[in-house]
C-alpha cells in the first residue's frame, strides 16, 4: 500500500517527479469525479486541526464552483509543536501537488494556491522546484504564496484574507471560504496532508495512516507516519520509548487537550475514536509531559503563547486570553492572587464561540483539559506550592 512518506527516507530530501511517478504511477485524474464519494465512504477527516470531513468540504465547494473555484492548499503550519506539514512538503511535494490537482478537478477549480509558511524554507523550495517539474498547463494555474508567521495566519478565513488583501487576520463568517473565498470565488481551503491523503486514496489507498509530530519525554522526537489504529503505546515504542515516566500527553497541539497518560496509553489514535472520548487528534501533535514536570507551568506557557497570538480583533479573545494567561502564569509561579483558580474555571467556560474564528475556542478547550488533568497541581499551586520535582521548562516553546 502507498503511504504518505513511503519511498526513500524524508531526510533524503524532495522526491523528483520522475521518482514519484515511478513509485506511485500516474495520477488518475479521470477518476476525480468519483473521488468525493470515495472520500465520504472512507470518512477522511481533515488533518489541519479541525478534523472536518474532507468529502463534505469538497462537495460544498463543488456545488458552487462551476469550474471557477479555487483550491488553497494550506501548508502554513503555525502550530509550534507540529512539523509534519513542512516535512511532507519538503519530502513529497508531488504528492501534495497531486492532491491539489485532484481537488481542483473534483470541485471545479481553475486556480490552485500553495500557501506555505514563510519560515518553512525547505518545504517552500521543494514545492517551487516540484511545480517547475510539472506541465506548463499546471504551472499556468498554480502559484505559491508565502504564509506570514503567526498562529492564526493558517486559519481558513485568515488565509483567504491574506491572499486577497495582504491581511492575515480572520474575517467574520459567514460567508465561509467555501461560499465566498479568494477573489470572491468558492474556495476549498484544505490542509496539505489531507490533499496528499486524497492523492493516495485516488490510487487505491485506504487512508489508514497519518502523520504525527512527537515531542517531549520521548527518545526520538519528530515526525512519524503511523497506522491510525495503533495505540499510543505502540507509537511511543516506535519512537524509542519514553525518556522518563510520563504523566500526561498533549494531543492535537496548543488547540488540543491534555490527557492522563493512563487514559490514553492503550487507546488507538484513530481521530474518530479519540473524538468519541472527547479527545482531539487535531494536527497530530503528541507531546509527552514527564512525571516530574509541572502541568500548571506547561499550561501557563501555552496560554501565554496563545494570548500573544490573538489577532486582537475580538474582545473576548484579546482580553480574555490575556487575563487567562496572566492568572495561569501567577498560579504557575505559586504566587496567585486570591480567586485566580476560580476565575480560570469560570473563564474556561465563557470564551468559546465568542470570536470570529476558533482561536478562543481552542485556547479554552486546552485550558479546560488542563484544569481537569492537573486538578491536584492547580489546587496545590493555589495554596502556593508545587508538588513536582522540576517545575520549569516542561515544554520547549517556540515563541518567535
Amino acid at each position, binding site marked *: 500500500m502507498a503511504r504518505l512518506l513511503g519511498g526513500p527516507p524524508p531526510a533524503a530530501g524532495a522526491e523528483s517527479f520522475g521518482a514519484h511517478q515511478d513509485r506511485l504511477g500516474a495520477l488518475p485524474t479521470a477518476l476525480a469525479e468519483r473521488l468525493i464519494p470515495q472520500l465520504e465512504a472512507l470518512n477522511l477527516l481533515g488533518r489541519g486541526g479541525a478534523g472536518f470531513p474532507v468529502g463534505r468540504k469538497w462537495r460544498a465547494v463543488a456545488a458552487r464552483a462551476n469550474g471557477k473555484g479555487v483550491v488553497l492548499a494550506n501548508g502554513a503550519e503555525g502550530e509550534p509543536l507540529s512539523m509534519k506539514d513542512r516535512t511532507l512538503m519538503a519530502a513529497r511535494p508531488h504528492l501534495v501537488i497531486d492532491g491539489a490537482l485532484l481537488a481542483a478537478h473534483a470541485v471545479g477549480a481553475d486556480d490552485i494556491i500553495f500557501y506555505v509558511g514563510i519560515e518553512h524554507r525547505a518545504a517552500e523550495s521543494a514545492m517551487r522546484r516540484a511545480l517547475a517539474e510539472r506541465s506548463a498547463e499546471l504551472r499556468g494555474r498554480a502559484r505559491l504564496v508565502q504564509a506570514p508567521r503567526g498562529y492564526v495566519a493558517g486559519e481558513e478565513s485568515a488565509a483567504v484574507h491574506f491572499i486577497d488583501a495582504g491581511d492575515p487576520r480572520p474575517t*467574520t463568517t459567514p460567508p465561509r471560504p467555501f461560499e465566498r473565498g479568494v477573489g470572491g470565488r468558492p474556495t476549498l481551503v484544505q490542509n496539505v496532508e489531507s490533499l496528499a491523503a486524497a492523492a493516495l486514496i485516488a490510487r487505491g489507498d485506504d487512508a489508514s495512516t497519518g502523520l504525527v509530530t512527537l515531542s517531549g519525554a520521548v527518545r526520538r522526537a519528530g515526525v512519524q507516519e503511523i497506522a491510525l489504529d495503533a495505540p499510543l503505546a505502540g507509537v511511543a515504542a516506535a519512537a524509542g520509548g519514553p525518556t522518563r515516566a510520563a504523566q500526561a500527553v498533549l494531543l492535537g497541539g496548543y488547540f488540543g487537550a491534555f490527557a492522563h497518560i493512563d487514559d490514553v496509553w492503550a487507546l488507538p489514535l484513530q481521530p474518530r475514536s479519540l473524538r468519541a472520548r472527547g479527545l482531539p487528534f487535531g494536527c497530530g501533535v503528541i507531546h509527552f509531559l514527564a512525571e516530574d514536570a509541572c502541568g500548571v507551568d506547561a499550561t501557563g506557557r501555552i496560554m501565554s503563547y496563545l494570548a500573544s497570538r490573538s489577532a486582537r480583533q*475580538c*474582545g*473576548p479573545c484579546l482580553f480574555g486570553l490575556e*487575563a487567562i494567561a496572566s492568572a495561569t502564569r501567577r498560579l504557575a509561579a505559586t504566587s496567585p492572587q486570591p480567586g485566580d483558580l476560580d476565575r480560570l474555571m469560570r*473563564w474556561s467556560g*465563557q470564551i468559546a464561540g465568542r470570536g*470570529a474564528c476558533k482561536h478562543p475556542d481552542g485556547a479554552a478547550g486546552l485550558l479546560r483539559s488542563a484544569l481537569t488533568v492537573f486538578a491536584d497541581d492547580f489546587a496545590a499551586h493555589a495554596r502556593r506550592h508545587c508538588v513536582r520535582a522540576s517545575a520549569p521548562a516542561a515544554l520547549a516553546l517556540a515563541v518567535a
Partner: protein
Amino acid sequence: MDEHFVIDRIRCDGHGLCAELLPERISLDDWGYPIIKAGAVSPQLLENARRAVDACPVLALKLAPGLER
C-alpha cells in the same frame, strides 16, 4: 420564523448597551463583552431585542431568522 441574535465579534467594541436593554438574554463578561444566551428570542422579548439591536453604536448586533450561527 424564530429570530436569533447574530453578533459580529470583530465589530463589537463592548459598549454594553445591548446587555442593559435586554438583560434577560444578554450579560457581559469581565471585560464588558456580551454573552448571549443560546436559542431563539421569545416573542415577548422581541421588541426589546430589536431595541438592543438598534442601540448598538457599531452595528455589531443583528436579529436573523432561522438557525443560530
